[in-house]
């Protein structure tokens, strides 16, 4: 039982990082109906930038963390301008957006490889004070708590931003109908740029937290989370932010429980992708989706 409780906690921690990553995905999808496959590359670059700022720049994590987040957001603006804005002007199909985002993912990944090299790197030791708390047989570290708190704070902040502010309202309007929003005098391109900025900075922050949690960063670390992120947003329903959070945590839990039940990590991803395939076939709108089956 204590082992199970420990697994539950571990799954919750990693699941919150998945959720944070998936929110960026789902935000762009909700607003633009485009699957942005460059999100994972920005996740990687966010983590690596924070690492660079702390090692080469000698900054403390408290400064490097927001700086790397802002830098990731800026990359999001670049991404929008390079890959999506030209297609919007042409009213191309959503699949073109999918492909141009793949192109940007390749470009970002090659930049990460060129700048940071192919090896796996670590944050310098002692960059964060990691305290270990033991309750009975369950262990929790301050790093884990920090990760969950940052992830939850960012998710909450985003929800409030979308619900309560003028810009948030504009984003929701564009998500509902780009055309109508334009007629109502909303600066659609500006709103989309803001969406990409937020989405990408959340992705970058998820990259930092992921790198801290696993104590490893590599130019290809986005690969595995890219597919997991997709699974999460489908599980939670495309475009739904609470769905992404719950989906992320559910996914994290399913991972650790598969490992705990089978005794090996071999089938960890298989369960998740089987569930994903089943949900797509049985209930394509996801668990918290908006109830309509979208078409490309």
């Amino acid at each position, binding site marked *: 039982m204590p082992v199970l409780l420990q697994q539950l906690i571990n799954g919750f921690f990693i699941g919150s990082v998945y959720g944070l990553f998936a929110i960026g995905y789902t935000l762009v999808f909700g607003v633009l109906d485009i*699957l942005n496959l460059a999100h994972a590359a920005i996740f990687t670059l966010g983590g690596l930038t924070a690492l660079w700022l702390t090692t080469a720049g000698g900054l403390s994590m408290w400064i490097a963390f927001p700086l790397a987040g802002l830098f990731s957001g800026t990359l999001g603006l670049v991404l929008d301008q*390079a*890959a999506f804005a*030209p*297609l919007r002007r042409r009213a*191309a199909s*959503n*699949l*073109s957006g*999918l*492909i*141009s985002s*793949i*192109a*940007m*993912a*390749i*470009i970002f*990944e*090659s*930049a990460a*490889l*060129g700048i940071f090299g*192919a090896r796996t790197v670590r944050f310098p030791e002692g960059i964060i004070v990691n305290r270990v708390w033991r309750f009975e047989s369950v262990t929790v570290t301050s790093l884990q708590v920090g990760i969950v708190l940052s992830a939850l704070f960012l998710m909450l902040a985003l929800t409030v931003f979308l619900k309560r502010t003028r810009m948030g309202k504009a984003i929701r309007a564009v998500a509902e109908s780009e055309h109508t929003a334009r007629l109502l005098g909303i600066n659609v391109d500006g709103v989309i740029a803001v969406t990409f900025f937020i989405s990408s900075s959340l992705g970058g922050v998820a990259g930092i937290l992921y790198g801290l949690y696993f104590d490893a960063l590599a130019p290809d670390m986005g*690969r595995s989370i*890219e*597919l997991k992120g*997709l*699974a999460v947003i*489908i599980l939670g329903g495309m475009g739904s932010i609470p769905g992404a959070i719950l989906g992320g945590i559910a996914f994290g839990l399913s991972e650790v429980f598969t490992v705990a039940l089978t005794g090996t990590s*071999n*089938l960890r*991803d*298989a369960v998740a*992708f*089987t569930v*994903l*395939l089943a949900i*797509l*076939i049985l209930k*394509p709108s996801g668990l918290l989706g908006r109830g309509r*089956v*979208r*078409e*490309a």
Partner: protein
Amino acid sequence: MTVEFLSQFLAVYGSLINFIGVNALLALSLYVTLSAGQLSLGNAAFAGIGGYASGILTMHLNVPYPISVLAGAFLPAVVALLIGVPVLRIRGVFLAMATLAFGEVVRIAAVNLGITGGAQGLVGIPNKTTTFIIYGTLAATTYFLKVLGGARIGWSFASIREDETAAKVMGINTTYYKTMAFVLGAFIAGMTGAIYAHLNFIITPGEFGFSAAVQLLIYNIVGGTRSVYGPVLGAFILTALPEVLRGAGVTAGPLRLGVNGVILLLVILYLPNGLSSFFGKKGKLHAQRDGE
């Protein structure tokens, strides 16, 4: 003199020439599915199923090469038929993700099963594929798809791609034709996987994963999907490009990868019909549409 040059050329570039042929065949397998408007990211996995199946048949059961390749083509086709019926109800980006998930399940299965050799891969497949076989298959497949494109089936595929609802209204059995395109793509992919397995001595699960699936899509987009020659052209250019770049002095891996990305971006932004739109007249469908 010429013979000497040719044999030297083949000695240096033989494996590159083989890989171009294999990639072109894989690109064509996705082309079939795309020509019916369905974006599948599962074709790499179908190639994997075919490769593993035929490799295992040859190694463990001593099945003759042609039969082993045929089995490698039919098995993924049957799998495609089974999953196609439920999966093809989903459209667009969602279909891409469902096939992606299927591909991951296949890859993970290959890593975990005993008979596939796990993560190290299936090692020791006898080398039976020749350049002649690859290009013979490529020529036959291209010809077959060319004929298919002009036949009733090809027109049905095209009408589904242009507007599925309209096609249905016109009395086209869309489920039937979509499944057919999916199964045919899986057949070609599996056949190519089987041919590839007997070319390379070893196949590993990683070769048939997400990146491979995306690579097939890139060949099609860069080459263009309006004619059957587009994917072949795309596979040729992008497979040969690293060698050309090496000749031009670009050896760094990241830069080469970056060039691929830039080419893909430029093509999708400025050449929606791919590089093949530089050659010859506009595609048949396109010309007709303009004439309307």
